[in-house]
């Protein structure tokens, strides 16, 4: 059935306990999953980063008593609650899809990775409770108590994403179980949770949360700045959001380098796809652009920078980097998607880091905000760009994992549902998510159109 070629995968493979027919390419199911994740992940960024930003402004209010701090924190908390509500439903869709689209993945490996979701469920629950208390508690709870009810939101937002990312790390670096005669045995859920990919994925995503949420929020106030709204309320919104993003963006470059070296170590074929490296090479070049030809395993065109890939991946210009030719064609991911997604992420990430550095330096050296209109236009653009980089990053790691759902243990085609009619489901899902996006955009405009003074008037 499988042509394992010269280099058989090290681990024994499993095809799943439900035993339905493999469905080659599983394209519709993968599209549905990718779409659902693309909708959910930006909201996760706000779940990670926004509560900390809100509490920061809330803390400023408690220290100074300035009403514009209160107005801003209160306004942001309402946005956070709405985004949380949308996140609850889009997150529920994801948990449904574990069963609907990948029944054999859940049936076979649920006992290994499931506990992480149990913990995530608890975190999510606590988040739901405290975000309701916090947002509805403005002007109703004692000041100190109210501030304190915000702290669990920050902690649970972090912990919840930790659990989910741990599972993704596990899919890329499966540990904590054995395989005997094609069956999964001896699950050790906590070992699986603390797999080798968990730390860099977690920190990479955590910083991405601050980059994405920070630049999007800052973009709103930068646009207001360009329209001439430069009062204390709008300035605080800009400075706080931009500061979070500007500190996270340069740090992300360093964490990204770390993540790249971990991928080199654990998933050499993913790295080869990221870089479009057809054959194992000593002192491998870094290729910008180009087009991979899967039929004869060659990379055409593109700008090669000699030895840079070896330097980046292994911190040694002469290091040997494993190429795509070391595994049979069936075991290679779709190279062009992964290659371009990665370049988009790195390109945008670099721009954002420069924008953030410019802001921090100006603030530090001149004790003022940058004056150029182009800086503010850049901040307005940075939000959507950060979103693109975020999604491109996830495409890099998830498409780069193909054709495996559990790396080198279970193939996507063995885990997917055998159901027909997924095309229809995909079309419906696209329509529903489009409606959702329009509705959320409408709501955020509505919220920002309300005068901030309304937040401090006791209703």
């Amino acid at each position, binding site marked *: 059935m499988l042509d394992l070629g010269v280099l058989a995968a090290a681990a024994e493979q499993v095809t799943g306990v439900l035993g339905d027919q493999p469905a080659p390419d599983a394209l519709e199911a993968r599209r549905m999953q990718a779409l659902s994740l693309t909708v959910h992940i930006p909201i996760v960024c706000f779940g990670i980063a926004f509560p900390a930003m809100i509490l920061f402004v809330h803390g400023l209010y408690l220290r100074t008593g300035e009403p514009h701090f209160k107005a801003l924190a209160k306004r942001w908390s309402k946005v956070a*609650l709405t985004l949380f509500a949308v996140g609850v*439903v889009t997150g*529920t869709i994801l948990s449904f899809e574990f069963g609907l689209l990948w*029944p054999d993945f859940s049936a076979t490996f649920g006992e290994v990775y*499931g506990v992480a979701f*149990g*913990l995530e*469920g608890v975190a999510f629950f606590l988040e739901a409770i405290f975000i309701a208390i916090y947002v509805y508690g403005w002007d109703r709870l004692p000041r100190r108590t109210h501030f304190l009810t915000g702290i669990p939101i920050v902690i649970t937002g972090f912990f919840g994403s930790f659990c989910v990312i741990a599972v993704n790390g596990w899919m890329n670096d499966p540990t904590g179980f054995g395989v005997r005669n094609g069956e999964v045995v001896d699950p050790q859920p906590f070992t699986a949770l603390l797999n080798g990919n968990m730390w860099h994925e977690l920190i990479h995503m955590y910083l991405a949360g601050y980059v994405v949420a920070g630049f999007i929020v800052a973009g709103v106030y930068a646009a207001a700045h360009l329209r001439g709204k430069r009062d204390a309320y709008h300035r605080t919104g800009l400075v706080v959001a931009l500061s979070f993003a500007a500190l996270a963006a340069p740090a992300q470059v360093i964490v990204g380098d770390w993540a790249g070296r971990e991928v080199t170590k654990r998933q050499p074929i993913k790295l080869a796809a990221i870089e479009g490296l057809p054959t194992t090479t000593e002192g491998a070049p870094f290729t910008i652009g180009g087009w991979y030809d899967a039929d004869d395993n060659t990379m055409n065109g593109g700008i090669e920078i000699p030895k840079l890939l070896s330097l980046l991946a292994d911190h040694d210009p002469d290091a040997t980097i494993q190429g795509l030719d070391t595994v049979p064609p069936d075991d290679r991911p779709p190279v062009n998607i992964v290659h371009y997604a990665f370049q988009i992420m790195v390109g945008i990430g670099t721009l954002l880091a420069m924008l953030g550095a410019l802001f921090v330096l100006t603030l530090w050296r001149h004790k003022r905000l940058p004056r150029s209109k182009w800086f503010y236009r850049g901040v307005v653009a940075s939000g959507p760009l950060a979103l693109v980089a975020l999604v491109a990053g996830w495409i890099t790691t998830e498409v780069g994992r193909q054709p495996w759902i559990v790396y080198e243990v279970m193939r996507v085609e063995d885990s997917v549902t055998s159901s027909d009619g997924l095309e229809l489901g995909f079309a419906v899902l696209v329509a529903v998510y489009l409606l959702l996006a329009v509705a959320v955009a409408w709501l955020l405009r509505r919220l920002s159109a309300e005068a901030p003074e309304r937040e401090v008037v006791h209703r």
Partner: protein
Amino acid sequence: MAEICLALIFVGLTMYAVLGGADFGAGFWDLTAGGAERGGRVRGLIQRSMSPVWEANHVWLIFVLVVSWTAFPVAFGAVFTTFLVPLFLAALGIIMRGTAFALRGHAATINEARVLGAVFALSSVVLPFFLGTVLGGIAAGEVDVADPSPSNAAWTGPVAITAGVLAVLTGAYLSAVFLAGDARRAEQPDLERAFRARALGIGVVTGAGSIAALFVLRSDARPLFDGLTSGAGLAAVLASVAAGAATLALIWTWRFELARWTAAAAVAAVVLGWWLATRPDVLPGLTLDEAAAPDATLTALVVSVAFGLLLLIPALLYLYRLVLSDTLTQSYEPLDQRFRPTDGDQP
């Protein structure tokens, strides 16, 4: 260990049936409240009651799902394969409902509120129906664990349809009882009367529906019927009947706060009865031991959830205490009133 995990699932189901069910029911009453002007008062009360709690209530569903796929992965995979269609439709309903409700709170014109309200209310009725058909299909033994495949017959049989309808009715009943109490707290005597009448009416309908459902079970899901009419299962059914009757009596005599608890107990007893009647099977034909994940997983799950509950229970109690003491609730406002031109600073 497996028994504890199954108990966790049933606890989660019970909580979701009571709390989530009441939220669905609120949508049912929203749908049937009449035109914008006539229904504005009812909708205002629903908006006020649901806003702080609906997200937390909804998380119980996620809890049930994750415990299921961790502790009983094969059964989970088989159920989700079989009921692909109704579960997909339910998932769409979840998106529409949650979003529309969250957005309605920010609607600026009566037309916006009307459209969002219609989406919220319709999906609130459709969603429990589909989830009910899945439970009914499971009860009728429609899941073939050895070789599951997507099946429309599985969720359109008599037991499944009955369960779907009952799920809608149950939610409406719980919600009417809860809203009657909320109306009293909001000091709206006319709404109190309105929901009292609704609670009495729907209570009788739901009770009659449940009895009819027993006959459907007798012809189409005999093992479950036998379990519910003997031993512990029968005790649970009788307890549910007693709690239901007590609820009607309490509502008749205007004691809504106590009725909240008996109404919830009536629903909880049905879920409990289902569990007692199907023991020791997880799905018909699949015993607990066959279905359960290895002990290491179950132990890890139970430890995790137990640790979680230590944090969750005080947090939940704090939330409900704040809600029931009206600390968090917004001042009552009929939904259509918000859009009257008297509200000076609205466009």
